[in-house]
């Protein structure tokens, strides 16, 4: 039957066409998710005066929002923000919130696994809008915490992850470029939001601004509308799955092997989830794949990134206060951050293009490790920068390194775990990373307070990142070697005339089509080893 036959050899992800519209949507969505919390800092002074609170209490608003959004950098404050405010950003509020629940990360993953990206993003956009509009009518700082911090923060979290996930579904060959372009949304939005927020504030005060910002955040719904679910809902090609959750799980893994990002995969997964999962933990396993913790590549990524985030964002938080400390005036110091954002803006798509080239793509993990180590080296050299020119050069290199790392942050994770498990992987990574993300700037702040000198903070950040980069480099070298070994073993087993051949052949033919994506298949082949019999039984169509 033609349709069924086609399903087995369905084309890979579109890698273009509507995918570029999805990239635009992701650009907007990711941009708001990262840039919006930073942009709010302009209003803090006024809110602080209005409610008569201390600066720390007002900074909680931003911190809560950042804690509820993923990867939220409690770090990079807005360019226009006065230096005094920036210096205070390292206040206790950030430290306290390291214990804040990091629920939204896994929650978005679960929701995306269940409903797909589009409804989640649209719902997130609505939530953001409602949060900000209600914040415009707040009468106490506590209400602001809830409206701006929790509701809007949660809405932004629901924006961020589905955007990243859907890029993995639409792109394979050009995925690094798509990722780089989408992640470029963050600095672009920041550069746009900063003057916009200032303009709104001058003309409408903080209440009016929050109202209008709520409307602007509704554009996330537009972005969500662009996230067309990929693949028409075809009838389930795969044979009936038993009601057991475990089989359903393996089914997913099988599908990975069959077709990376196959158009038919999404409805399959939904079908599988609906049919399987009686036991509770098995059910959770479907929505959030905890078996990832046995995945070697995932663990390497997790440890390396957790280490890296300790020193990733602190330099941005403290760049402007450091500039002022060595005698540079407020506006020039804020301009340093603008330079950083502009270089960042250019660096991200460029890194995406470089990462997509045939020389780098197979070894993208090395490129990632290199960019982290490069970032760390910049920080180590920063104390040597003297005067404004030195800091400008530092800002340029830092912007470059920052952009490189951010552009490849999700790409490398996708590369390691594959597009299907990426949803769960991103959720799990969120929980683990958020603690260090939030700890980084306060640790830096403590170092500065103790020694009275900024250079120890830079040295600490630089050292941590160089260490993380080196760790990732070495471990990924080990990982590549192990994957190559497993690939060899698998090929050796192929010689045996086992029924496994049909499935392997199918995989191999697809392998040839996308030789560049060798490393991508490797992690999948590993799981294949353990599940061969069931796979065979299931896949004999």
């Amino acid at each position: 039957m033609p349709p069924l036959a086609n399903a087995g050899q369905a084309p890979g992800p579109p890698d273009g066409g509507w995918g570029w519209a999805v990239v635009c949507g992701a650009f907007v969505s990711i941009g708001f998710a990262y840039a919006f919390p930073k942009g709010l800092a302009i209003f803090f002074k006024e809110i602080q005066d209005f409610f008569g609170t201390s600066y720390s209490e007002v900074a909680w608003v931003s911190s809560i929002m950042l804690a509820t959004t993923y990867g939220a950098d409690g770090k990079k404050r807005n360019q226009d923000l006065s230096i005094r405010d920036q210096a205070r950003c390292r206040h206790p509020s950030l430290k306290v919130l390291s214990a804040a629940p990091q629920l939204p990360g896994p929650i978005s993953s679960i929701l995306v696994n269940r409903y797909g990206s589009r409804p989640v993003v649209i719902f997130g956009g609505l939530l953001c809008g409602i949060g900000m509009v209600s914040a415009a009518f707040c009468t106490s700082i506590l209400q602001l915490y809830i409206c701006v911090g929790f509701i809007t923060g949660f809405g932004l979290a629901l924006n961020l992850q589905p955007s990243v996930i859907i890029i993995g579904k639409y792109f394979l060959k050009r995925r690094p470029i798509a990722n780089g372009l989408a992640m470029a949304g963050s600095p672009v939005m920041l550069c746009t939001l900063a003057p916009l927020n200032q303009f709104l504030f001058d003309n409408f005060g903080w209440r009016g601004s929050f109202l209008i910002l709520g409307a602007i955040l509704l554009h996330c719904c537009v972005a969500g509308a662009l996230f067309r679910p990929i693949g028409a809902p075809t009838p389930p090609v795969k044979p009936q799955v038993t009601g057991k959750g475990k089989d359903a799980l393996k089914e997913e893994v099988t599908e990975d092997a069959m077709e990376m990002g196959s158009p038919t995969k999404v409805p399959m997964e939904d079908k599988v989830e609906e049919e399987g999962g009686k036991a509770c933990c098995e059910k959770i396993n479907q929505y959030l794949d905890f078996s990832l913790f046995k995945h070697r590549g995932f663990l390497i990524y997790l440890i390396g990134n957790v280490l890296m985030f300790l020193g990733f964002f602190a330099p941005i938080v403290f760049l402007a206060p450091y500039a002022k400390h060595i005698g540079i005036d407020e506006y020039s110091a804020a301009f340093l951050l603008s330079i950083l954002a502009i270089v960042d803006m250019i660096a991200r798509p460029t890194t995406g293009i470089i990462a997509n080239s045939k020389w780098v793509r197979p070894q993208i993990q090395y490129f990632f490790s290199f960019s982290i180590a490069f970032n760390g080296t910049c920080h180590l050299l920063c104390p040597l920068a003297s005067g404004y020119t030195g800091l400008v050069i530092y800002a340029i290199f830092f912007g470059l390194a920052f952009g490189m790392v951010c552009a490849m942050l999700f790409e490398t994770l996708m590369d390691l775990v594959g597009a299907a498990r990426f949803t769960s992987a991103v959720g799990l990574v969120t929980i683990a990373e958020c603690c260090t993300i939030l700890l980084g700037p306060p640790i830096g702040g403590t170092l500065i307070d103790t020694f009275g000198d900024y250079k120890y903070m830079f040295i600490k950040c630089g050292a941590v990142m160089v260490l993380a980069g080196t760790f990732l480099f070495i471990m990924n070298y080990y990982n590549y070697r192990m994957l190559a070994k497993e690939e060899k073993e698998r090929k050796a087993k192929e010689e045996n005339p086992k029924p496994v051949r049909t499935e392997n052949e199918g995989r191999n033919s697809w392998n040839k089509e996308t030789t560049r994506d060798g490393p991508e298949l490797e992690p999948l082949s590993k799981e294949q080893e353990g599940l061969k019999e069931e796979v065979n039984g299931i896949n004999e169509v």
Partner: protein
Amino acid sequence: MLAVKATGCARTELQKDPTVTTQDASHSQANSLTKMQTGLNVSSPEPMTTTRTVNRQTQGSPSDHLTFGHNVSVPGPDLTTQEFKQETKEHVSNATFVEYEILLPGVSGTSTEKNITLDRATRIELSCRLDNKYSHLKSLQVTWKWGNETLRHINKTENSWGIQLRIWDNSQLGSYSCTLKGEEEMHAVFHLQVPKIEGKEKPIVSYEGDTAVMICKSYGYTPTAWTWYMTNGSEQVAINDSLLADKYVINRVSANVTHLKILKLTKEDDGIYWCEAGFELGKSKGKLKLKVLSLMVPLKPFLAIVAEVIVLVTVVFLYEIYSKKKEKCAADEKEFDQIEQLKSEESNGLENSSTRHRKI
């Protein structure tokens, strides 16, 4: 070459940084503190880059400067009253004493003026010093002036001329200038002022029925009292918060900061407000603007943006439905073609087989 030297702990407004403390005076480049002691042969020259701060509290034990005072008679427009007050002031144990000096001639590009901020009664010495390069000049005539009045009793050392003043009243503030007349004329001015209060340049925007909070800060100097004024037409009317307690609340949050809270805003509250800080030596005002808007003002852009979002989402969904229909039509056509093809193949195959049979 001009070097503007400042001794003492009063702030200079040239730096314009509110957080500058005495220790931070070292930030400005050509700042060096030297203590000039006339009549006493104390070596004063210090390298230009070092600074020495003079502690306000420990400064001015009268005995140290009594000798000083004896060598010099205090100039001033009203010598007798000044001398009298000098006697009484000398016994004040915590009187502050500051010295200021301008080096002449001026460097091109830098003005030979100095702003000195005083908030309380102070004994002050102003001096104009001639650069060593020019010490060869003879027959220099030096005049000190306060406004139009000429001051006598100038302290003269080797190449510096100074006057001593006691400021305890607003009327004594102003501009004191020294002129050195020789082959060229060199001029320096000291401006003695009360501390300035900065208001806000941008208006504070608030809404009808809402509350507005206006803040005034004094940087470095503690005022004795704060007063708020609102502008009624062209008049400035003092705000009495005890009289209109449910409308205005004045709160002195800390010694240097005052808050004015206006409740239940209406359109009439729109306008200019003044916060006035009272110091021992005078008063100083800061200006703030309040703008009161109605809720309709931000509502219009809000509704416009929401409408735009709805339009965009509708367009995207409609396009999606349209392109899906197109695909479906194309797919249906394709299926139709395929079925036709199969049918023709089958019929061909049947013919072939029957042909084969026949042949065989």
